[in-house]
């Protein structure tokens, strides 16, 4: 019944905003077999990210990271995409909303447009393009892999409409397009409309409106971008020359620092500036001087502190703790003049710069605010949605969720996590549509290629500047085209873009190609995509080889272009050699086990378990200790004042009551085997340590972190020295003690951001603020000193920081090389520190010295779990995600996810977002009925087998056996594909499909072709 009228069904989710977050939400839902309508007001989806050049912390090009997602979303059968569309109003309630939509006229029929660009060539002024500094952009698609792959027309700018219509070879231009409006139904709405950026025009002393060389960070990003106005050249807007000295000024429009600035911290600008400065050094000249003027360096994300260190130590970026006084340009002068003072001296320093970049913060755009009002969701004074309790994703209106920068200022990884979490919550509000077998996409039958002469097509990406910027792709194509069996070699811009994919497909068809080589990025990330592509053209997926000429050539040999091009050619030759030997292979699949194992029974683990259990999945929740609750058992209140114990109590109650959840306490994981969709994990349970095994399809690690307890500042020696967790208990349980204190000193970064533990613990700054404010509530006369290195109260925490300052908490900065000293004197602690601004040493006799010790990975348990599950960890012992931006809660081993502080230190509400995100990611796997085991399995040639048992003994998984016919048999459904049996087989009777000996030997032969020949 539900499917009879798809337009009217409310059994789907509306995602508003086609930026990275919206795409992630839509993809998660679609992969979980749920229907989505994705609307975006722009002509092509991609949001703000399409304007960025490279993004931290990996500093890779965004377009190439984003592109696969976009083409994937363009393909998804569950997603309907409405571009140039806005939401006009919403009625109804959770489960049954009616949304009125309005689409602006594009004047182009999307079904007909091929994105050929003829209209733009003929009438460049009529074709729409909008990002900053756009007038010199080389292409008027928003970015090379645009989705939909179509232009849009600005009809009012067109003089000769008839000629414009005729210019289109596809007949796609429709000047009579009036746009459309209508209503749709949906069960839940996810808002990810993104944010705008602060406009610094109003701040005179920064000179943004007067001097072209003062740019915002996003504009600077466009200048760096390969598809930007200068085609990726770094040039001064004023005179087109290369800049030699560039400065960044932080906190523009944030932290209430300027006229009209927002009170919060924008969270991402510090990393953004670091990235821009590093990319500047890396891509252009080492000798470009880069200086960052900052208030507090807020590199609080996972491994971000290391990134900061790299910027400082490896790239030589200069950091000045100062708010510049002014940016001026003397009449007739070329350069900008910046004046500032430093902490150490009040003398005004003036320096000359070629360019100044303003790190402008996030704002809620007016259109977004209006949209929110139409949706009737409550906003705070900065126009961000008010969330309910600890759940950041839920708005005040049930059924409407929020993700990304509209929820609060944040960076890409956190946006991606929120997007998945929103998919989890929204997906719960609708039912999964019943699947019919006809839903399978129809693929053409596979062509028979065995015995055919190999006809290889080689497609080489330039990947924007990534490859093309280092090597001459056209010249490479020419040489590769001469290789034996290569019938066509051609350059593809971004091979993974929809346009190029279509191009490759048509080339395969036209030239009758039966084997394909892609020269581009890593098969690790893109092999599946190109396999699908050739399969759509009727070729078996395994008739493909990828030559990794980006990650393993141009990215690492950029300084030696001749060597890079030689190596790229060698790698392609090797790929051609191997693909010629490739055979069509059959993939194996097995039914999936839909049970879930959640390891760790803290708030994160319980939340993930509940989300999945409420969706009908059986969840085993394994907790090492005898009780649920984890570290939250020791916590009382959040910064915002939420009662953690009340929350925890109800969470435990719900968990215990849910009949789909089996809580196993006292559980120690001891062994593990299987593959995604069919894992078996063994654990020893309870005091008797009895052994049980659990079969499950996915595994979620929510094992938490540990409070750090370094032996510093007399901690554990002197009873007046406590940690933030302990002071919190004192405040709540012994207010009379706290009331008697005169002086309290808090020291930040104890045991964090040090040589031994270089990362930031993220939570300590807000803990110090939280506890300071609580102390002042019960003891308004207390004098509180917070000794810090950088106050990292990101996002809305900044407002509490301001409040603490207003209430008289004294914040004193210290340098890492001159830390405070503490000695015990009677029942007090004497703390000595240097006030940098006063230039004086200060001694405070404190009643309590509180150390912000943060969180560290629980090395013992993560190490053991990492060994058992074969998972990688970071240097400091946290689980290492598969991709920090695009797959932030997926672990590299398929079927494994990580959430909460096992990923990195974070607050409870941030952990809860991840908990829901992993629930969403898990559902993308669990929604499938079968798991594809791939074709990389070992195959026995029984005519060669000597039944020697060597494979039987060698297999790490005990798969081979000698069958009734007396030969070794390997069940492809059980084979893990390591190839060890193939290596050890003395009769060479076993080959590992896709990695056969002749393929490997052919690669070697081709590599040395020149050397020998």
């Amino acid at each position, binding site marked *: 019944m539900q499917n009879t009228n798809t337009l009217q069904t409310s059994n789907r989710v509306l995602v508003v905003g086609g930026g990275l977050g919206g795409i992630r939400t839509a993809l998660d839902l679609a992969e979980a077999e749920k229907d989505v309508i994705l609307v975006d007001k722009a002509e092509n989806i991609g949001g703000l990210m399409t304007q960025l050049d490279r993004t931290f912390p990996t500093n890779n090009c965004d377009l190439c990271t984003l592109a696969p997602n976009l083409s994937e979303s363009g393909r998804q059968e569950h997603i309907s995409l409405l571009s140039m569309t806005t939401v006009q109003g919403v009625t109804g309630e959770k489960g049954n909303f009616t949304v009125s939509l309005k689409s602006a006229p594009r004047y182009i029929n999307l079904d007909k447009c091929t994105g050929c660009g003829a209209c733009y060539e003929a009438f460049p002024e009529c074709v729409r393009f909008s990002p900053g500094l756009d007038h010199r952009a080389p292409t008027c698609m928003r970015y090379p892999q645009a989705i939909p792959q179509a232009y849009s027309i600005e009809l009012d700018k067109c003089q000769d409409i008839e000629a414009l219509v005729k210019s289109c070879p596809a007949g796609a231009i429709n000047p009579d397009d009036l746009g459309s409006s209508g209503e749709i139904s949906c069960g839940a709405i996810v808002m990810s409309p993104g944010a705008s950026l602060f406009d610094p025009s109003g701040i005179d002393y920064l000179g943004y409106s007067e001097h072209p060389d003062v740019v915002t960070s996003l504009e600077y990003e466009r200048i760096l971008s390969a598809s930007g106005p200068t085609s990726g050249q770094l040039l001064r807007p004023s005179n087109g020359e290369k800049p030699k000295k560039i400065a960044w000024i932080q906190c523009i429009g944030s932290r209430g620092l300027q006229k009209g600035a927002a009170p919060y911290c924008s969270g991402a600008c510090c990393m953004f500036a670091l990235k821009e400065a590093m990319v500047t050094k890396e891509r252009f000249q080492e000798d470009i001087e880069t200086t960052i003027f900052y208030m507090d360096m807020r590199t609080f994300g996972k491994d971000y502190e290391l990134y900061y260190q790299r910027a400082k130590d490896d790239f030589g970026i200069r950091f000045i703790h100062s708010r510049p006084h002014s940016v001026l340009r003397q009449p007739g002068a070329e350069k900008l003049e910046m004046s500032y003072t430093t902490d150490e001296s009040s003398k005004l320093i003036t320096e000359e710069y070629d360019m100044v970049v303003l790190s402008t913060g996030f704002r809620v755009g007016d259109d977004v605010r209006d949209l929110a009002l139409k949706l009737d969701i409550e906003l705070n004074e900065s126009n961000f949605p008010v969330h309910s309790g600890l759940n950041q994703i839920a708005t005040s209106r049930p059924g409407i969720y929020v993700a990304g920068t509209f929820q609060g200022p944040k960076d890409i990884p956190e946006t991606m996590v929120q997007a998945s979490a929103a998919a989890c919550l929204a997906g719960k509000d609708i039912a999964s549509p019943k699947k019919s077998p006809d839903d399978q996409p129809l693929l053409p039958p596979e062509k028979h290629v065995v015995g055919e002469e190999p006809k290889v097509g080689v497609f080489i990406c330039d990947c924007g500047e990534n490859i093309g910027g280092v090597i001459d792709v056209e010249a490479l194509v020419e040489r590769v085209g001469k290789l034996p069996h290569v019938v066509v070699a051609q350059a593809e811009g971004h091979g993974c873009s929809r346009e190029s994919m279509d191009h490759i497909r048509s080339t395969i068809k036209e030239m009758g190609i039966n084997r394909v080589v892609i020269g581009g990025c890593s098969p690790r*990330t893109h092999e599946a995509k190109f396999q699908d592509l050739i399969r759509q053209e009727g070729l078996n997926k395994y008739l493909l080889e990828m030559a990794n000429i980006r990650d393993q050539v141009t990215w690492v040999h950029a300084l030696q272009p001749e060597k890079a091009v030689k190596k790229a050619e060698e790698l392609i030759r090797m790929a051609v050699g191997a693909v010629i030997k490739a055979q069509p292979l059959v993939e194996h699949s097995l039914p999936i086990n839909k049970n879930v194992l959640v390891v760790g029974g803290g708030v994160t683990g319980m939340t993930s378990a509940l989300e999945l259990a409420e969706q009908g999945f059986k969840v085993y929740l394994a907790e090492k200790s005898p009780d649920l609750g984890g570290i939250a058992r020791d916590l009382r209140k959040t910064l915002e004042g939420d009662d953690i114990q009340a929350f925890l109590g109800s969470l435990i109650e719900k968990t215990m009551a849910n009949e789909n959840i089996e809580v196993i306490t006292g559980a120690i994981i001891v062994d593990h085997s299987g593959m995604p969709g069919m894992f078996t994990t063994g654990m020893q349970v309870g005091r008797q340590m009895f052994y049980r095994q659990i079969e499950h399809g996915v595994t979620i690690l929510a094992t938490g972190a540990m409070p750090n307890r370094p032996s510093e500042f007399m901690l554990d020696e002197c009873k007046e020295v406590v940690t933030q967790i302990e002071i919190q208990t004192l405040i709540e349980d012994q207010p009379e003690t706290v009331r008697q204190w005169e002086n309290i000193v808090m020291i930040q970064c104890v045991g964090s951001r040090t040589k031994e533990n270089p990362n930031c613990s993220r939570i300590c700054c807000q803990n110090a603020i939280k506890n300071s404010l609580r102390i002042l509530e019960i003891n308004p006369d207390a004098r509180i000193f917070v000794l810090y290195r950088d106050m990292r109260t990101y996002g809305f925490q900044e407002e509490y920081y301001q409040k603490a300052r207003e209430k008289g908490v004294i914040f004193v900065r210290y340098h890492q090389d001159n830390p405070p000293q503490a000695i015990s004197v009677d029942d007090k602690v004497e703390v000595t520190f240097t006030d940098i601004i006063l230039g004086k040493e200060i001694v405070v006799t404190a009643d309590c010295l509180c150390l912000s010790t943060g969180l560290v990975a629980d090395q013992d348990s993560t190490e053991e779990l990492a060994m058992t599950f074969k998972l990688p960890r970071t240097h400091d012992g946290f689980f290492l995600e598969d991709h920090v931006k695009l797959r932030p809660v997926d672990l590299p081993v398929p079927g494994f996810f990580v959430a909460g502080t096992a990923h990195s230190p974070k607050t409870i509400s941030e952990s809860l977002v991840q908990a829901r995100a992993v629930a969403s990611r898990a559902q993308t796997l669990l929604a499938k009925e079968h798991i594809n085991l791939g074709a990389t399995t070992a195959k026995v040639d029984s005519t060669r087998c000597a039944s020697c048992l060597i494979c039987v003994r060698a297999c790490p998984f005990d798969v081979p056996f000698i069958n009734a016919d007396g030969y070794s048999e390997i069940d492809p459904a059980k084979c893990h594909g390591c190839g060890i049996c193939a290596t050890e087989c003395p009769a060479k009777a076993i080959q590992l499909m896709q990695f056969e000996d002749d393929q490997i030997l052919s690669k070697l032969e081709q590599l040395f072709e020149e050397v020998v020949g």
Partner: protein
Amino acid sequence: MENFEPVIVAFCCHYCAYTAADMAGSQRLPYPSNVKIIRVPCSGKVDALHITKAFEKGADGVYVAGCLDGDCHFKNGNDKAAKLVTYVQNYLEEIGLEPERLEMVRISAGMGDRFALIATEITEKIRKLGPSPIKTVAA
């Protein structure tokens, strides 16, 4: 000999070493282009024959890169690879090739820096050893 550019074949396991190589890429950590990677699912997949053939074709150095101790995605493929490398080193010695031309290394997926460092060190080592005697004869 000063301008000698060795050709080095690195058999890298998919789950750790190859990923580390990609990681070196995304962190833009340069290393010599002399190193050519052949991806294998597990370092345990590398056959003695693949190694000797590499030398036969003209490699100046070969290394097999697997996961860290105890971290093999396939339980113990990396340990098997390490034993194989020792075995082949002895064979190379018998053949009359310097066993130092072959090496086993272990890298985890996250160690882009280590990958670049190892690639650089091995290239320098092979450069010092000079061209493979096989190649000198063939040329």
